[in-house]
């Protein structure tokens, strides 16, 4: 029973990683860049909810929607101001810029809200459920997180495969030039990708901080890095890969915390990544890029 509880909590944590990883993987697939500021967008989103819901008592759903709007605007603006001018620049320049943006967001948050941790009030109102005569208790946050992740995942895959905007995203991710020749507006498609990724980051932030209720300017950094690992683990650029990578990472982290060592759990997570990349360099579901002339 203990094991089942660890496993379910791992899946829940993994769901959060998966939601964040979606932002990494979609932006990488379509804009061919690693947006290292993604984790910090989550942090900003969580502060929005902290103030809207915690301080002003706004309805929790409305708070999340507000946070999604703020994060979407933030994500699209960052892309427009910081990344778009570097569209033709070497990828190293873009990467360094993204790290710079990440620090910028953290520092701005520190200026605005100080570095002292805030206690985040859970946005989930669902009561925990008890199974097997009380031997297994699953918290409301855990259930909501897993359900939200699955719903978003299914919705996103449907969107990408069945709407013109989704097809445009697939086309841009395969061949930007050819997509332009089809009439796809590449800049608009990249903006849309950032918008979706950032909105998901807001949801991930709400769920993350509801389960782990300490909020400070560096809150997004570690989950951001782990979600990046999850995206690479699952095969960066692949949406189901982000999902699978996230969930597995959450499970591995939680189980190693439970059975091996709390301190070593992060090291184990990264060790698994290294092993996967050694065995399968494109990640679990990553596509091998075939160049055919």
């Amino acid at each position: 029973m203990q094991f089942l509880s660890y496993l379910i909590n791992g899946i829940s944590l993994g769901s959060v990683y998966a939601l964040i990883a979606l932002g990494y993987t979609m932006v990488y697939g379509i804009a061919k860049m690693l947006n290292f500021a993604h984790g910090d967008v989550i942090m900003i989103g969580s502060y929005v909810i902290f103030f809207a819901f915690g301080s002003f008592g706004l309805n929790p759903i409305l708070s999340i929607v507000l946070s999604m709007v703020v994060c979407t605007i933030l994500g699209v603006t960052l892309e427009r101001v910081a990344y778009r001018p570097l569209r033709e620049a070497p990828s190293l320049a873009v990467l360094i810029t993204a790290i710079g943006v990440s620090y910028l967001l953290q520092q701005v948050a520190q200026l605005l809200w100080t570095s002292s941790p805030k206690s985040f009030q859970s946005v989930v109102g669902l009561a925990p459920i008890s199974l097997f005569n009380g031997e297994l208790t699953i918290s409301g946050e855990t259930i909501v997180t897993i359900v939200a992740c699955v719903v978003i995942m299914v919705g996103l895959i449907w969107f990408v495969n069945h709407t013109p905007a989704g097809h445009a995203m697939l086309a841009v991710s395969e061949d930007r030039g050819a997509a332009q020749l089809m009439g796809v507006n590449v800049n608009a498609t990249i903006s849309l990708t950032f918008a979706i990724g950032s909105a998901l980051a807001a949801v991930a932030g709400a769920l993350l901080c509801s389960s782990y209720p300490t909020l400070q300017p560096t809150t997004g950094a570690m989950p951001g890095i782990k979600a990046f690992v999850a995206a690479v683990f699952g095969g960066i650029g692949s949406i189901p890969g982000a999902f699978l990578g996230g969930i597995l990472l959450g499970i591995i982290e939680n189980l190693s915390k439970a059975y091996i060592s709390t301190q070593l759990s992060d090291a184990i997570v990264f060790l698994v990544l290294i092993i996967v990349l050694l065995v399968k360099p494109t990640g679990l579901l990553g596509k091998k890029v075939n160049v055919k002339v």
Partner: protein
Amino acid sequence: MGEMLSVKNINVYYGSIHAIKDVSFHVDEGEIVTLIGANGAGKTTTMHAISGLLKLKSGEIDYCGQIISKMEAHKIIRLGLAQVPEGRRVFSGLTVQQNLQMGAYTRRDGKEAIANDFDMVYELLPRLKERRSQPAGTLSGGEQQMLAIGRALMCKPKMLLLDEPSMGLSPLLVKEIFKIIRDVNRNGVTVLLVEQNAKMALDIANRAYVLETGTIKMEGEATELANNIEVRKAYLGC
């Protein structure tokens, strides 16, 4: 028949390389015009300049009475100027059907009109119909070329730019592709064809231009150029 596309004194740079030097040519409505030349002559650069993937340093490109040289690539295709790019560049992860659907991305004239064009394309290229639900990456080179042409036709172009459609194909397939190009032209689509295979290109074209190291060296009726001593020596190998 009026002038459809007119390229006026364009200069294009790749970084510091002056790839296209003061090139001018025109294509009239209904024609097949070919641009022949060796590797590195600047043929693909010219194509990319027309379709908006590359920006001009100077000069102007007009299409149907509109200046398109300052327009973005995704807007140019909305004017009915489609390109079949060099190396086909089909979306290999998408199915044949989805690739064709991508070709119709800009169209807003209703599902029925698009369905009609699916039928038209499948009739013109029956092999694509057999493979409609296969990922494009699993097609042979010839089939991918057909798909690239079909995809371009799905936007209902008035003019088609074809960049090296014969590249990497067996002689038999080259013949088939050129027959398709002629059929497309007979259906009222103006064609600008860039080719290294000068013999085949001159065979189906009305007029031709010879491009050498970024400049137009010769121009004239296709039959005329095909009999020209210099062209025969340099491009036809006889």
